[in-house]
């Protein structure tokens, strides 16, 4: 799997290079790494952990927030020899994006069908 960003993507979207880093000393071999996500919390941490665990090449995946007053989340990944920690991360993120995309489509299709109770008048106020 290629890890390069295409020129077009680079032009279109500003890449925040400080967002993700590899925690020093955790990537002894490509199959294991702890990634540090800046300004992320349980929202992405736990969802990503779930997506990583859904990959059968991932032996271990977990996340932690080392300190409550620092806005960063660590994600630990260990994989089999068939892949690398980085590629598992890419796959997890892609799977999560696919899932979100389908949820939006299903939601909008259901909304368009209009088979639900609609309350015009708001009784709360």
């Amino acid at each position, binding site marked *: 799997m290629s890890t390069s960003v295409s020129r077009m993507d680079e032009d279109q979207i500003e890449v925040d290079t400080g967002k993700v880093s590899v925690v020093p000393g955790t990537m002894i071999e490509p199959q294991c790494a702890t990634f540090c996500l800046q300004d992320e919390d349980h929202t992405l941490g736990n*969802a990503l952990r779930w997506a990583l665990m859904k990959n059968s090449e991932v032996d271990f995946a977990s996340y932690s927030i080392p300190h409550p007053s620092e806005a960063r989340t660590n994600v630990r990944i260990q994989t089999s020899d068939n892949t690398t920690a980085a590629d598992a*991360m890419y796959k997890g993120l892609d799977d999560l994006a696919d*899932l979100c995309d389908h949820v939006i489509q299903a*939601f909008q299709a259901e909304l368009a069908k209009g088979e639900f109770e609609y309350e015009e008048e*708001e009784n709360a106020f």
Partner: protein
Amino acid sequence: MVPEKKNFSHNDLDTLRSRVIVERDRVTSTASTDFPHNYPGQDLAWDFEKFKESFKLKINKLSKTEMEFDMIGIDAAVANAFRRILIAEVPTMAVSNVFIMNNTSIVVDEVLAHRLGLVPILADPTKFDFKGKEETPTDLNTIVFKLQATCRRNPNAAEGETDPLKKYIHANVYSGDMKWSPQGDQAERFKECPIKPVFDDIVVTKLRPGQEVDIEIHCEKGLGQDHAKWSPVATASYRLMPEILINGEITGEAAVRFQKCFPAGVVDVVKENGVKKAVVVNPRKDTVSREVLRHAEFENKVKLTRVRDHFIFKIESVGAIEPQDLFVQAVKVLMDKTGTVKRSLQSTLQAE
């Protein structure tokens, strides 16, 4: 996909995998275990096609401010991400700077500013930019309101009138007194839906004759994680679908007693060959109070569970953004997060 109807005796793998078990004084089997290598002979790895087949979304109720829908076939980690994003990471516009030229009302400046901060603003946040700390306010990142009110005696008030609202003019200052002052081309951009507070009847402060407020209010785009005033929802929550399993039959007067253990509409008592019989008709309405588990006569006759991947999701909007738009925006926020992290990781690893 979750196995449909279960019979009572199940303490099998299917139940443990798909149900949270509610006992008299504890819950068991709470964590999801549908991961690869967990169960021999079962794949359980992520499969987008399988997900598309099993995922179901059904909207039950919708109004201007509230919506309820069922989301089936998704893990709690993802459902919870949607919930958390709705509360803390969908942007809205809210008052962030209050310039008080004059305030002789009973409410002191800082309290008044805080009260104004919590007034929800009806404006489309997608049409605004976030204002950086060092950035100056422009028509693209700031909404300006003027709040000017002076209280005086009402010359037409009846003699001996004691109600301040009748005795004085402008005794109460309401959110509706905030007058939008369009900047740049804002008047043109928002002529379809002029910017205003969501509610006109929020009391901001009270005045007596001679007192006045003269305030300029600046609203900015922000996130609920920075301050609750930017949260687009009163709350967003979900609960798992309750399930009530009866072992064999509950008949006669016991059926009536059984029915009384649940909220109205959950259990029906039907007559079968002249004998009363309890039937579960609508477990959705159950509050899972576990009352039924306190009765010795129903021991081993009933089992309460919740379907682990059936979320009854409720969104209660503050009113600035309609709930159906909120959900789509929330899911998009999660999707954007995955893209941001992926691109950043790629550039980080490239640099190494």
